[in-house]
């Protein structure tokens, strides 16, 4: 068995709001091996970002309440003190944010912000940290790093800013990198460059990677293992080839069907009917039930468990692999 870097078990993240308690992540378990690329995919509001925030303990508690365990190299992050957690953040687990426009501090130069992590965790001097920042900026492919080190974020393009974010994240050579839709705010050509960069640096530094996305194309390109989330639940988990060849959960199939194909003659895009249920009115039983063509009485009455159907392929559906499932796949 491979070496487990991060092991999340029974993670439940709830928010206590004025209108009641909402559950954003519902009993999620997964693990990331050293050097493995795991994608968490799902629609907006399915709890993917909350999951990554929970791992980093970036949610304010209260109103958030996190239970379960998040073991990183054997240590449960949820039981660490604030100071211990501070030493892990940015140093051993780093994060890339979705919006490079707002995640960089507008009043400091990019160089200063890269240098800050180094000074914080490695105790480098100002000059050392700055020289190292230049080096990192070169590593992430920023042209003229000696000049850009003194640029303010607003003087750089979106792609360059995201590269700065990556440089900040990688400065201390973390063991785990969590990227929350790192390319959503960028245009497509830049997106490909950034993804390529993340992949390449990940190999070079042998990091574990949690990539959060809603884009199946990105999943196909980046993931080794995929976790499909729906409304706070993991509904399917498999390695990327299995998932694309043999998707078992109706939701995963829906996601894959909604990717337009060139050879397809149809005019309209295939979409999954309906929307993600609101956090306040979660359906009983299977949460995907109301949008599912296969929904039966049992689906409404019972919450389907996440079952291993063999070969580390887990599905949360009563119909998985069954007759109806195959029919649905063909329709």
């Amino acid at each position, binding site marked *: 068995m491979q070496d487990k870097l991060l092991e999340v078990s029974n993670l439940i993240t709830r928010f206590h709001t004025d209108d009641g308690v909402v559950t954003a992540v519902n009993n999620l378990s997964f693990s990331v091996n050293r050097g493995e690329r795991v994608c968490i995919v799902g629609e907006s509001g399915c709890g993917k970002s909350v999951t990554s925030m929970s791992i980093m303990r970036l949610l304010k508690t209260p109103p958030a309440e996190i239970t379960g365990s998040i073991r990183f190299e054997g240590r449960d992050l949820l039981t660490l003190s604030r*100071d211990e957690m501070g030493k892990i953040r940015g140093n051993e687990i780093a994060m890339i944010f979705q919006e490079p426009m707002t995640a960089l501090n507008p009043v400091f130069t990019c160089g200063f912000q890269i240098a*800050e*992590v180094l000074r914080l965790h490695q105790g480098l001097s100002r000059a050392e940290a700055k020289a190292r920042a230049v080096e990192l900026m070169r590593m992430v492919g920023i042209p003229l790093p000696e000049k850009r080190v003194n640029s303010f974020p607003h003087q750089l393009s979106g792609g360059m800013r995201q590269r700065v974010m990556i440089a900040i994240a990688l400065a201390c050579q973390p063991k785990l990198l969590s990227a929350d839709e790192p390319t959503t705010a960028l245009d497509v050509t830049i997106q490909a460059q950034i993804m390529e960069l993340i992949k390449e640096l990940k190999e070079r530094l042998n990091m574990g990677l949690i990539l959060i996305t809603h884009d199946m194309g990105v999943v196909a390109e980046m993931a080794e293992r995929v976790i499909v989330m729906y409304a706070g639940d993991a509904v399917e988990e498999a390695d990327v080839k299995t998932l694309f060849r043999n998707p078992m959960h109706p939701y995963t199939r829906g996601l894959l069907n909604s990717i337009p194909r060139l050879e397809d003659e149809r005019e309209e895009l295939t979409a999954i009917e309906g929307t993600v249920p609101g956090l306040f009115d979660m359906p009983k039983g299977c949460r995907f039930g109301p949008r599912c063509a296969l929904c039966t009485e049992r689906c409404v009455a019972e919450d389907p468990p996440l079952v291993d159907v063999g070969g580390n392929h887990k599905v949360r559906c009563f119909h998985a692999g069954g007759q109806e499932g195959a029919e649905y796949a063909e329709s």
Partner: protein
Amino acid sequence: MSLFKSRKQKLAELEARVASAPVVRTPAEQAWRRFRKNRLAMTGAGLLVFLVLFVVIGSLTTPYNPDMVDLMSIRAAPSAKHLLGCDDLGRDLLTRLLYGGRISLSVGLASALLSMTLGTLIGTLAGYFGGWVDAFMMDFTDIVLTIPTLPLLMVVGSVFKPSPMFLVVMISVLNWTTTARLVRSRFLTLRTLDYARAARAIGARNGRIILFHLLPNSLGAIVVTATLSVGRSIIMESTLSYLGCGINPPTASWGNMLQSAQSTMATAPLTAIAPGALILLTVLAFNFLGDGLDDAIDPRRER
């Protein structure tokens, strides 16, 4: 990996490259450039430097004692001997202006600094931590705001015969509320922004996030309020001295000079015009300066 490991050897080379990088302006240089471009702000700054030098050097070189009564030159007209003439007790007006300026300027500056510090501290804590801290601090601020400033200062002033130091504290204690509310509202927005979260994600703790990430982003607003409050403090000091509860005669301040000029205004108008003009100039200069500093501090204003 090798890229990282060879850091030590590459350091010198890299530093050399950083040093020789093409036309780079450091952040401080960029800020100075922005400030210099703002003509009004430069005027304000120049005026202030001039006023301070004028007051300091002047008061050290004047041949007269500011409090010395000279019966022979009561209400003397401006002459070579007394450049601006004398007041109703025969004291040299220019000398009193210089000494009064020392008091007025330092009271103004000191109380602006003190109230800025107080206000920033309270606003920061309230805005960053929120919850009951915020509720408590803001209720306290509201209570201070409801205190009628002038009557209170007058009562305290007439009971205690205030020293300049005492005046500074009194003015600051009543003046920090604006800064506190401003800083709080800045922090309420700033703390929810991604870069505050990103700072936490790289392992920064509260203190560091406040000092290095949020405070610099509020600095523009704080500095502007502070410079405006220098003007306000000088006016407040003048008002109090004018009403007779601030700086006590015979010590000169621009405010109490205005007051004593009341009786001589008609015959020797300079006794009123000179301190009045100096107060006006100082307050204006600070307001101009604040405006320019706001532009200079914010790197996004670069064109």
